[in-house]
């Protein structure tokens, strides 16, 4: 048993160049159920989002005038024509949720990616420079962190105007400070180590030092932050949509769907339940995945 395991470990370097995220991490990750479940659900949602045009039974904006507020298939008066029922305008909820996955996950992904790229760049700049650059960047981030995240997002959207793209920009603004602080702290810790000096002794310039020597050693916390940030991004996008500041109708965005049908909550429970469940399951999966990754990437928490 032991022999098998160590043999596997020895094989690991061939798989990837980055030792931080290798075979051992996967082994440790696989050993707990929650994160694996989260990963599976995220994989499923991603597949749904990518194949939305083929999977959705109807178009997201197609109205069926003969079926306003039709209940889901298994409820009284429901039919298999609309599996999850229809909304007040007679649109198929299942199709809208499937199309909405594309919007929510796609925009969420773009927002987190931009936030991490921007945040890492600023964090590296702050971590490697001293004095003015560091002070200006970090104090700005402190101010951004001092505002409640939704309030900050609303301010950004209020300035830029309500639209899906501006809501994404607002999410970026909310997330950037977290990435900056995390990167800066990791860079500070790594920069003092001997291998950085050794790299300078081989003639590495400041850019090479930042991106090729130090950054790969800071990836573990950043991956966790990005995963957990994804769930916040989905949630914030839905919240902005619900407030009418994000995606505008008829875009099938989950938060906007909730807002559209809020008035029918008491008469037709399904119009808010299913978009709400979609948000809940997505956020939960990303949180599970993020926690699992944090445990797997931190050797001290490995079992």
């Amino acid at each position, binding site marked *: 048993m032991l022999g098998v395991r160590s043999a596997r470990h020895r094989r690991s370097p061939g798989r990837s160049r980055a030792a931080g995220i290798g075979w051992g991490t996967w082994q440790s990750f696989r050993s707990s159920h929650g994160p694996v479940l989260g990963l599976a659900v995220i994989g499923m949602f991603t597949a749904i989002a990518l194949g939305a045009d083929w999977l959705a039974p109807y178009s997201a904006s197609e109205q069926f005038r003969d079926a306003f507020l039709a209940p889901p298939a298994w409820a009284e008066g429901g039919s298999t024509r609309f599996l999850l029922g229809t909304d007040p305008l007679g649109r198929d909820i299942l199709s809208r949720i499937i199309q909405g996955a594309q919007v929510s996950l796609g925009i969420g992904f773009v927002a987190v990616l931009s936030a991490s790229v921007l945040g890492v760049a600023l964090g590296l700049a702050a971590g490697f420079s001293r004095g003015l650059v560091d002070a200006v960047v970090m104090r700005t981030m402190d101010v951004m962190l001092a505002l409640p995240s939704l309030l900050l997002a609303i301010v950004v959207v209020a300035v830029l105007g309500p639209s899906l793209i501006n809501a994404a920009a607002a999410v970026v603004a909310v997330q950037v400070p977290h990435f900056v602080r995390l990167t800066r702290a990791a860079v500070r810790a790594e920069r003092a180590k*001997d291998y950085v000096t050794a*790299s300078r*002794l*081989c*003639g*590495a310039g400041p850019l090479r030092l930042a991106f090729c*020597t130090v950054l790969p050693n800071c990836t573990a916390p950043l991956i966790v932050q990005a995963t957990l940030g994804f769930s916040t991004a989905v949630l914030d996008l839905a919240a902005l949509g619900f407030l009418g500041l994000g995606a505008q109708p008829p875009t099938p965005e989950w938060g906007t769907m909730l807002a559209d049908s809020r008035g029918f909550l008491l008469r037709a429970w399904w119009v808010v339940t299913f978009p709400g469940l979609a948000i809940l399951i997505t956020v939960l999966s990303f949180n599970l995945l993020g926690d699992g990754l944090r445990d797997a990437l931190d050797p001290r928490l490995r079992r």
Partner: protein
Amino acid sequence: MPLLDVRHLSIAFGAGEQPVVDDFSLVLEEGEVVGIAGESGCGKTVSMLAIMGLIGWPGRITAGLMRFAGQDLSALSPRKRRSLLGRDLAMVFQEPKSSLNPCFTIGFQITETLAAHTGLGRRERRSRAVELLQQVGIPAPESRLRSFPHQLSSGMNQRVMIAIALACRPRLLIADEPTTALDVTVQAQILDLLLERQRETGMALLLVTHDLAVIAGTAARVLVMYAGKVVEEGPTREVFASPRHPYTQASLDALPERHAGHARLAALPGSVPGLDERPQGCSFHPRCRFAAGVCRRESPALLPAGHGLVRCHLPLAGDGTRGP
């Protein structure tokens, strides 16, 4: 023209602070092996980093001149200076485990240096890396290229560090306590390796250590440092046989190798003064057996005595007793 010519180098951390290294001078010829000895905190590593141009903020070179192969190092642009590092000037550190980047394979780290300083193609870089690993005595070098630092022992990692340092055939290798973190048998192997590579390539080797025994067996010339200053310099054989500075003598007396048969090791009372408690006059006088009034008032200069130089008002005579 000497390969490395450092004169009256002073380094301070923060403006107006006491210099950490004061009046450090070193002349090194092509292919020479010189040892620098001193206790922890006497400024050995800082002066080496200064030569490499890697003194970090808030450290500053406050005085002195550094020339490498005729070029004034402090006048070079940062880019020019970086191009010297790793190519003509190389350095090996004390802690092999932390000196290698844990994220990358050792093969990648060796070829990285080659890519930066030579025009070799990918294939040639790889075969040169194999050749280097072979030279530093790593078995099965081809498969080791794919290993990560954590998969190798400290001794192996130190060999890899040496391979990286030697990658571009430097003219000067600074080995900063290369054997301190290793156990005794490996220490001897690494020293032998360094000397063998030095003989073969004809590079100059600057061996920094707190272990006088290491220098005795390797270096032709030795500098002894105390509290940021060079206190004695001369040919190793003469300095070890008849030290002129009381500190050198006391340090040599504390070597167990010289005490076969004695019941107790001689010890030097007291400890190295910290940066803010360096005394007036000669910085060694509070611990010196021979200290006189002049030692408390005036800081001595580095002056010729015997075969070398010594920074003492009252240097010892060749026979270990106090001079006239």
